[in-house]
């Protein structure tokens, strides 16, 4: 029996008068990988930020396991420890090397002893294939390597769920593969993931479900095959067609 890890119910977010998204409901079960797609400006990033409490939703509720994290008096910082987040532009701490980037949360938030934290951080770097780059500063790493360190940094906190916000869209094409490879591995290991991406190859292969978001609401969701081959809405078909044109050329040729 699948156990829901993240439950979103009737979530609405506005910036002033501007409604970003409206009445979004979504459940992510343990071990699932959910991919969110949709045109830019539809509120995908905002949705992830709401889930991570980096910004407040205006209406609706979110549960992490059985805890309602949108409830009043909920400890934001504690919640964020259990939700990993990976950003489009990596956002590594510029003044720290890869190892210290991963260690900082462990020592300052989890209050681990430095020795333990170091061992754990090295293990996480190993997991993303960067143990040999531990001493490198962000400026000395390629984009793909920086993003992998960012993933290790999030993983180190042992999150219940990982959120990815277009993790490869700031990368040069030849660097995308290494990041997707790490994410694929995570999915296989059973990590629960919510991923915003336009990498259709990844979505088709790894996602349990794809959610198509447009103009602030969910147009359609379902398993990849269903969305790709039997979409219920024309808009889904059009968007997927456009996106495969743009990003998926290589896939088509295979």
């Amino acid at each position: 029996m699948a156990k829901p890890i993240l439950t979103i119910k009737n979530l609405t977010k506005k910036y002033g008068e501007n409604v970003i998204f409206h009445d979004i409901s979504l459940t992510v079960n343990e071990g699932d990988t959910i991919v969110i797609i949709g045109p830019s400006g539809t509120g995908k990033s905002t949705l992830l930020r709401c889930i991570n409490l980096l910004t407040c939703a205006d209406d609706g509720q979110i549960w992490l396991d059985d805890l309602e994290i949108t409830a009043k008096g909920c400890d934001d910082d504690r919640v964020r420890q259990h939700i990993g987040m990976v950003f489009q532009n990596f956002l590594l701490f510029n003044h720290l090397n890869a190892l210290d980037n991963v260690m900082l949360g462990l020592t300052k938030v989890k209050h681990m002893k430095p020795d333990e934290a170091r061992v754990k951080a090295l293990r996480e770097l190993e997991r993303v294939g960067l143990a040999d780059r531990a001493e490198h500063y962000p400026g000395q790493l390629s984009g793909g390597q920086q993003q992998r360190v960012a993933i290790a940094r999030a993983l180190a906190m042992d999150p219940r769920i990982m959120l990815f916000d277009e993790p490869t869209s700031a990368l040069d094409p030849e660097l995308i593969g290494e990041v997707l490879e790490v994410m694929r591995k995570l999915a296989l290991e059973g990590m629960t993931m919510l991923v915003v991406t336009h990498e259709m190859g990844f979505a088709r292969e790894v996602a349990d479900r794809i959610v198509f978001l447009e103009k602030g609401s969910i147009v359609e969701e379902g398993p990849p095959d269903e969305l790709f081959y039997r979409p219920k809405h024309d808009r889904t078909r059009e968007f997927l067609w456009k996106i495969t044109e743009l990003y998926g050329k290589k896939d088509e040729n295979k």
Partner: protein
Amino acid sequence: MDVAKFLQYIASGTAYTVGVTLIALPSGLILGTLLALLNVYSGKTSKALTNLYSTVMRGIPPIVLLFILYFIVSGSINLSPFLAGSISLGIVSSAYQMEIVRGAILSVSGGQMMAARAVGMSKRQAIRNVILPQTLRLAIPPWSNEAAIVIKDSSLVYALGVPEILRRAQLISASTQQPFLAYAAAAVIYFILVFITSRLLDGLEKQLRIPANP
């Protein structure tokens, strides 16, 4: 006046000048950093108040402020002119240092705060562990400039009767009847102090520089 006495005068005057600077500069840095943090990370009221502080303090000549603060400080606690003057000079400098630190905070991208919060750090932890370490590095070059200004402004406590270099030069000039040489010697000492300080801070900046920072 013999040479030994002359040198001893100069040395003790230099010690006072260095002392004033070593009190004023760090106290201005601490106060300025607190003000900058209030300005950037607190509510609208703190922003407005700290902006007002900055505009007013930077709109008044340092020597006028120094006199006002000196009379307030020495009127409320019993301090020597040296201490009262140094603290007052620190307060004068705080408004300028606030602007330096604020500029540096704003040039650390907002994403750094978001990333720190996403790992589960509180705002306070994020400021301490992520924002300030980057900010203070960025602030070193403009801060080096401010350090030179504070060394030079330390000459203002001359007017409060603190026996720093300029006051010593005045005494020497009176007793030797060589005013040009006396003040030229004072100028040389200030110049050396400013020069050494800026070299030291240059070195510090190089040492702390983040490798290959984009």
